[in-house]
């Protein structure tokens, strides 16, 4: 599998086309009505984009990770919620693909992801854990005849009602400590979702992420044998932070582009005289450059660490600090850029129905610092920095 093949370019061209042709015209409606971006996800399914990361030998398209990251960026430029749904799904696929080992059921499941273009949602957060993904309260329990069951109270499940399957963190058993977690793949027909409360948030409204009481009974083989802490360190955490930061960069880039269009329009009205906002646009570009650089550097570091046999560096605390800081930096910088773009565009940026509107961009990126709260990540990094050396 070559890193830059015609297929990869095709894949990115296809996703870019879906972003422009399908995601962009629906973005305002998806945002206003807080509804799932059905058209975009359908188009991505038809393009087989949901199995992009599944290896060719399992029926997927074997698209390199960096190309999927670029696809998150492209979708982010047109519809933040669509990009987030796409990214969240790819994170779940990556967790299975990179830790599938010799488990026949999981390999077979990946074939089904490819054939049926199944959409996977994540159930990692839990009421009562204070936002710590590394601890679970809900546990797997024996349900007889080689079956297991669980019941988990999740404060948010992104697109839970629209997913075909759920990837759930749980304690290994009723006696297990909170940190002794496994990852379990629950299919929709094995699962009951009871929604708690409503979904009317400030931004990322199309992700449709209310809370649910999730319960399921399933065959024991649907629990991944690799312990969750390892999957988290090697895949879930870095891949989440990288794909999220790519889509946040996409949203911020579109906010910048709108601000630039605004300045150009003003310049055309008064030729020969640079509009006052042009200066602020230049400042904005340097802020965007910082975000771009950190997002790219994070991706490069991850690719390097992933390419080593056994991926030993990804399990180190130094790697945890590195990808945690990517998340913090990108999630703080993206809304800052959107707000500065609003400053450039002024009232026409503030209004929701102009070509220069950036309200949705600002609201969508404001969710970034809350998705795994930055405060908690700072706490983790603060601890790790006491012991990690070359950060």
């Amino acid at each position, binding site marked *: 599998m070559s890193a830059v093949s015609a297929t990869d370019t095709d894949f990115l061209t296809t996703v870019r086309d879906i972003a422009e042709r399908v995601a962009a015209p629906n973005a305002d409606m998806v945002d206003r009505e807080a509804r799932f971006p059905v058209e975009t996800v359908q188009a991505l399914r038809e393009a087989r984009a949901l199995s992009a990361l599944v290896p060719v030998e399992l029926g997927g398209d074997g698209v390199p990770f960096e190309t999927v990251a670029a696809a998150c960026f492209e979708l982010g430029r047109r519809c933040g919620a669509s990009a987030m749904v796409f990214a969240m799904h790819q994170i779940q696929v990556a967790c299975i693909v990179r830790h599938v080992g010799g488990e026949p059921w999981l390999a077979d499941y990946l074939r089904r992801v490819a054939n049926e273009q199944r959409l996977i949602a994540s159930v990692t957060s839990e009421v009562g854990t204070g936002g710590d993904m590394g*601890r679970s309260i809900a546990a797997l329990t024996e349900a007889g005849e080689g079956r297991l069951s669980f019941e988990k109270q999740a404060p948010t499940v992104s697109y839970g009602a629209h997913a075909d399957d759920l990837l759930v963190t749980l304690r290994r058993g009723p006696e*297990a*400590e909170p*940190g*002794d977690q496994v990852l379990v793949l629950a299919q929709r027909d094995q699962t009951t979702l009871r929604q708690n409360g409503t979904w009317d948030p400030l931004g990322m409204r199309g992700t449709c992420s209310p809370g649910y009481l999730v319960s399921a009974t399933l065959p024991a083989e649907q629990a991944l044998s690799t312990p969750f802490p*390892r999957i988290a360190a090697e895949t879930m955490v870095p891949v989440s932070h990288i794909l999220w930061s790519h889509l946040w960069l996409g949203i911020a880039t579109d906010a910048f582009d709108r601000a630039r269009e605004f300045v150009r329009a003003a310049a055309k009205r008064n030729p020969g005289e640079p509009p006052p906002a042009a200066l602020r646009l230049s400042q904005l570009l340097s802020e965007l450059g910082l975000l771009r650089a950190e997002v790219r550097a994070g991706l490069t570091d991850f690719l390097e660490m992933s390419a080593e046999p056994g991926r030993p560096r990804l399990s180190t*605390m130094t790697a945890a600090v590195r990808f945690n800081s990517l998340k913090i930096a990108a999630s703080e910088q993206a809304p800052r850029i959107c707000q500065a773009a609003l400053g450039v565009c002024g009232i026409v940026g503030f209004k929701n129905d102009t070509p220069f509107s950036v309200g949705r961009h600002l609201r969508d990126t404001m969710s970034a610092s809350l998705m795994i709260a930055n405060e908690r990540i700072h706490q983790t990094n603060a*601890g790790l920095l006491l*012991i990690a050396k070359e950060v």
Partner: protein
Amino acid sequence: MSDATVIEQIRNVIAEHARLPGEAADLPAGASLYEAGMTSHASVSVMLALEDAFDVEFPDRMLTREVFESIDAIAAALSELAVGSSA
């Protein structure tokens, strides 16, 4: 320092810093500290205390979950850093 002393000292550090729900003295040397309830936060305290107790610095490549998985694993890591008498 003999191997037995090293194990004893590691056990003392665990007792003081791992914040396990059970008694560290009863823990088999091969048992998983994480399964015994050591959180990742507590594991950082354990690492710091070990560096202090044995006057070593764990290089970044050793700062993984596996290296601090059990008393035995920690002893192996320390011996790699030339603590104790193991050849």
